[in-house]
């Protein structure tokens, strides 16, 4: 037991702050991507985050993290981005693996740049206006994830599953984050 606490304390001493970089995939398995009904499995939306590891008790940590993701696949008249504040707890199971759970406040911004687009409409075409304002949707997600240290205590690969509308079985949707953490 003392040995375990020593490991965790020494780990904590070395790893107070962390930087994360990776990709954020919103609406995983819920947004249709082709005409046969397949859904999104991966998207490259660069994510960067900065966080801190605060020891609570024993091998339990509180790991708040502020993150930002920019969506790459934007059309010319729109920009999308997400800001996150993760309130995650973590439990260190071994020197190689950490389990993570908690909540995230999400700030999803759609920045409309105006203009219009000529699109098919019935048997002819119509010019439809594009969004011209910035709108933000705030939502909260429940998170579960894990973090694996591959070759060193300084680097880990992390996967976070964010559950939206957790209480509604039919309405539930998922985002995920796949990141490299540097302590």
């Amino acid at each position, binding site marked *: 037991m003392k040995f375990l606490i020593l490991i965790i304390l020494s780990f904590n001493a070395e790893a107070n702050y962390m930087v994360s970089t990776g990709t954020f995939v919103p*609406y995983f398995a819920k947004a*249709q991507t082709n005409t046969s*009904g397949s859904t999104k499995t991966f998207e490259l939306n660069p994510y960067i985050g900065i966080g801190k590891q605060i020891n609570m008790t024993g091998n339990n940590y509180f790991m*708040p993290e502020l993150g930002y993701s920019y969506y*790459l*696949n934007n059309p010319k008249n729109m920009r999308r981005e997400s800001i996150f504040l993760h309130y995650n707890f973590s439990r260190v199971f071994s020197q190689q693996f950490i389990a993570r759970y908690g*909540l995230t406040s999400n700030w999803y911004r759609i920045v409309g740049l105006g203009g219009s687009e000529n699109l098919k409409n019935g048997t002819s075409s119509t010019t439809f206006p594009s969004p011209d304002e910035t709108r933000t949707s*705030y939502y*909260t997600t429940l998170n579960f994830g894990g973090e694996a240290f591959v070759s060193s205590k300084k680097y880990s690969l992390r996967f976070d599953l964010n559950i939206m509308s957790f209480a509604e079985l039919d309405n539930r949707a998922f985002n995920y984050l796949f990141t490299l953490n540097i302590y």
Partner: protein
Amino acid sequence: MYYSILLFVFVLFGQQAFGFSLNNNTGKGFSSNEIDVYIADTDCSGAGFTTERYKALVSSAVKRFWNNVPTSALFLDVKGIRSDIDIDGDDHDAALNKVPRNSILAGCNDSADQFSNASILGSAKMKCSGSTCYAVLILNAHPNSSLPDKDEGVIEDIIAHELGHAFGLGHSKLKPSLMYYSVSGKFQKWLGQDDIDGVTYLYPHDSEADILGMSLLGNCGSINMDDDNQHGFFKSMLIGLILILLLGFFRKLFIRNLRGSL
């Protein structure tokens, strides 16, 4: 290394560029996130179903698609058949004048614009004046209509598409999206990302309820839009942080007390 770069370039440029558009007649959509949907008491036999069945199809379409977006607070509330509203023989403008304000009316007839064309399955028109909006969606019940040949799932897709127009969305250029101009040659099981973005843009979660994480519970239909609440996210972060720090503090206190009592 070469393959990694190739894979990165493929992923980067292989992604679909999303982009929704807005309905021409509307501006920014309804002022409330909760919109009542009524069914006109008009004969839909030309479209292949009864008015009662139409109501069930509208309810199912709403549940399958638009009330199912966690980043949006839109809630379409299908109220029922209005026996006092009949749109038989009306074009879009005449039908629109019969719609209760701040609601959507769904009906069918054989006289709306272009309904003699069999390929037009339905259409919608929305009108806004100040903060008051109203919209009508009409399915094609003309003798030429090809709606009776369609599966019920496809009819739900068409209703959901027209509802999208009725609350403020325009078309998408991506075929997998519900708001693509045509339903033929595809199986619409989910919304596309630009449908999701469109409804999120028009009806975002920006109410006080979301500060307390109420969006975790889904769309309850009682959330009102508040455009002035631009600081909600920071309040949300602060309250969440305080709650979690308190939780950690009490947990620590509990464990200390437990150890003390042992």
